[in-house]
Structures are given as C-alpha cells and as structure tokens.
C-alpha cells in the first residue's frame, strides 16, 4: 500500500498499467478497457510503464483479471469468478485450468474485477 497514496487518480492509473502491460498476451483486453481517460495515459508513460501495483494485486490477481475481461467466456458482471469458469466449462469453451486451480485454492478474490463496484 506504500505506493497508493489514497487518491483515486492513482488508483485508476494502476489498473490501467496492468492492462497495458499484459496486452501483448491477449488482445481482447483492448476492447474491454476503453481508453478510460486521456489524462491518465501520459501519467503511465511518465512512470516508465512500470507495474507499481504489486502491493495491491499479485500475479494471480493479474491472471484472474485477464480472465474476467476475456469476452469469450461471457460477461463477468454479477457472477462469481468460479461460477463463470464453471459455466464456460459446461458450455464447452475450455477455460484455462490454471484459473480453476487458483479459484479453488481459496487465496484469491472470488468476485470479479467489478465485484462490489457496480
């Protein structure tokens, strides 16, 4: 929490950094995260593009957020992560096994990225 000074702008910037960092891996993220504000992009680059959110969310949370925002498995609002994974499995969409492992370990957040925010 050291880097989070408590102002909302900093909070949003962090999320944006994650997304841009990982975007080389999966393309749908571009459509999922609209350029939320034009002001924040320069701020990100000024920061050197460094991910400064290790304190707030770890590796697994990053992977899970990628999963949340992947439209192939359907909308993530209003459905728990595990329920969404299981739905994708039932519909034959072959969601990644590692996600299931993470969610069943119980050490991660069970609600989606937007859980409790909308």
């Amino acid at each position, binding site marked *: 929490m050291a880097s989070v000074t408590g102002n909302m702008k900093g909070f949003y910037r962090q999320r944006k950094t994650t997304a841009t960092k990982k975007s080389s891996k999966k393309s749908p993220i571009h*459509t999922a995260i609209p350029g939320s504000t034009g002001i924040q992009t320069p701020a990100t680059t000024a920061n050197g593009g460094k991910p400064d959110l290790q304190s707030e969310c770890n590796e697994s949370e990053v992977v899970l957020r990628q999963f949340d925002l992947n*439209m*192939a498995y*359907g*909308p993530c*609002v*209003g*459905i728990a992560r595990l*329920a969404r994974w299981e*739905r994708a499995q*039932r*519909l*034959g*969409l072959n969601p990644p096994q590692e996600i299931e492992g993470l969610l069943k370990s119980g050490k991660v957040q069970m609600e989606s990225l937007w859980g409790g925010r909308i």
Partner: protein
Amino acid sequence: MGIERVQCGYVSLDETFEIRKEKYHGQQYCHIYFARLHLMRTLLYSLVPHWKPNYPVCTVLELEEGKECVIVGTLYKHMKLKPRILDEYSKQKSVVPLVKPHNFMHSDDYLVLEDESGRVKLNGNIIPPSEYVTGIVVALLGKESGAGDFLVQDVLDTGLPPQIEFPLKSGEDKYVVLVSGLSVGSSTSNPLQFQLLIDQITGHLGDEKAQRFASKIVQVVFAGNLVEIPQRILNGQNLASEDFARMSEPIRELDIMLSQIAAGLPLDIMPGPSDPANFSLPQQSLHGCLFPGSSTYNTFRSCTNPHCFELDNVRFLGTSGQNVDDLDKYSDAKDKLEFMERTLRWRHLAPTAPNTLGCFPFTERDPFFLESCPHVYFVGNQDKFETRIVNGSEGQLVRLICVPKFSETGVAVMINLRDLECHALSFTVDL
C-alpha cells in the same frame, strides 16, 4: 353400468422452467443473451457448411467492404415507437409519431446484428424488420456496403428442432382438453358456462353416447388466467378485512370448480398474466394452499408457464400466451399461428424476453431455447380458436393451437392423441 375412463401415461418435463436452484444476486440480463448466442451459434455454425459451403464465416469485427461472408449474431430491432423509460425523464419534447393502437411498429424500424465483437446495421429486402424481433439468433450471408452497413443476401434460421418419434398409432381415441382464460371473478365469466364444461368432460351430461365420448378424455389443461382479481381492490392501499375476503373469493370459487374435475380426471393448471403468480417468465406453479379442495387429489397438478409434458409419448408444449402477445406488439404476421410457427423455426419460445417481456435473469442457461420439437404446441388466452399443422424439413410434424379465452368465447379445444386431430368444444348459455 358404469363406463370406465381411459388411462394415459403422464410425464412432466417442467424442470427447465423451474427457478428453484437459481439465485438472484444482482446479475443483469447480459448472461441470458450470452447463453443464447452461444447455444444458437454453435448450432448455426454446424449448419452453415451445408447452407453456403463456399463462403467464409467471420465475426462482425472482421467484416471488410465488399467481401462476401457469413456472419452469425443476435438481432436487435431498433424501434422508434418502442416505449422507453428514459423518455419520461427527457427534458426536451421530441416529436414522436403516435403509436398505433395494436402495436409499436413503424416504417423506419431497422435491424442490427450483434456479437461479442461489435454490431452492424442490416440492409436489404431479404430481411424485413417487420417479421423479426430483438433477441433472435440468425446466420446472414452478405457483404459490407460502402456506408458501413451490411447488405443481406440470404438468411438462415435454426429451423425446427429435432422431434421425438410420434408413437405408433394404437387405434384408440384419447382426448386432451385445453381451456384458457376462465377469468373466474371477472364480469365476462359465466359460472353456468364453466359448470357446463365441467359436466361435459366429467361425463355428467348427455346420453350414453356422450358419456362414452367423455370417458375418452384423459387430461385437462388450463392454460393461464384462471382467475381475475378485481382491480379496484388492488389500489396499493392497505386492505380492509372485508376486502381480503373479496380478493380471495375468485380463487375459492375456482377451487370448488376444479375439485369437481380433479375428482374425475387428471388436471394441469398453468399460471397466466392475471393469476396470483410471479410476473416474469417462467411463471412458477401456483401454490397448492391456494386450492385446499382440489390439491388433495393426486390428479391435480399445478404447473409452470411455459408448461411441457408428455402423454403416451406425445409431447406437449404450451404457454399462457405472453410470448405470442408480445411478438404481436413488436412484429407483424397474418395470424397468431404464424407467430407460433416462427418461434419454432427460431428455436426459441420467447425471443423478446428479456427485452420487452419480463424474464428471470438466468446466468447459466436460456430456458426458452427449444431443444426438441413438441408434437402439440399451444398458446392460451387468444381471441379466437385457430389451428394448423406445421411440417419441418426433417419430417417433424407439429400441431399448432391457439386456445381462445373461455370466458369470452365459451370455446375449449379437444385434441385426439391418436392422430392429433383437433376440434373446438363450444358452450353457449344464451337464454
């Protein structure tokens, strides 16, 4: 000498319409559209190679100008006259043409096709907006025109679902009676007319020939709008104690009538728009405690709406009319049967749910997706009795029936399970 009533095997298939296991925790309707698109698209993708083998299949985002291809997605109909909640809050007065008395169609309506990647406006005479509604999944062949629209050259819908085999003809007549819109407690309902119906089907009327005929009735189904609670009582204020009695009076009266039937033969009741059930589809079965008399019989079954069941391996599917009435508000057809036929061809019982028809926000599935084709498909609470047979491309054969409101027309419908022949049973009590 007594005449014995003919028996028949009954299997209830209402499980898909029960919301028992589902929980509401703030989810929105996007899930139901996702489930629908996924189910139907998988199906359409398997049909496309036979339909247009020489064209590529792509998503909306991959469209290129001039490239002929097949796209699959959910239709959305943009309607100028469709009532929107936001209009009531808008500050500026917009010039909106008056709504026609029977539906919300306008000549400026147009269709949009959506998938996860994007949406595109549709053009061309092949796909007239008047026939389609929001929520159907179709495959389209065409190309992107200069203006960024998609020029449709051909349309493929999913077609009739596969059907279980019709049982071999046994040579024995067995009848099912469909009744709808009893509206006990309304001004149009006539207790004598209803009593005549009961006496007829339980075999208390007529000579031995008529009784022998009545003994062949194996099942009665009441398709919605069993009662009508007087509106002036339900004005949002606290009820006086005498109003409580008046409110439950129609149900008590109905219970007395239904127990006469339940004593004689199996009986299914489905809730409808005017019944004391939940508003949104699928409507859950009315609780047995509303019918203390008739629910003591094991022949009495309170079912969901939509309702699906099998009698001697003849599959029935029916609704209390909301799905067809809603299609009538937002699209156009020459008669109600055509709407019914379309829902079968689109393989979806209620495509306008959840857009304009109330619906539970399912997350895992779309209960109105038709996996198999019924032999008899009925819709209650219609204006007049209509019936027709529809044939599918794989030899499916479906009897479509519009069941009229009994309180207004005095007409019930009889179907013969042997050959799906169908006729009206009409009662008049004009003196």
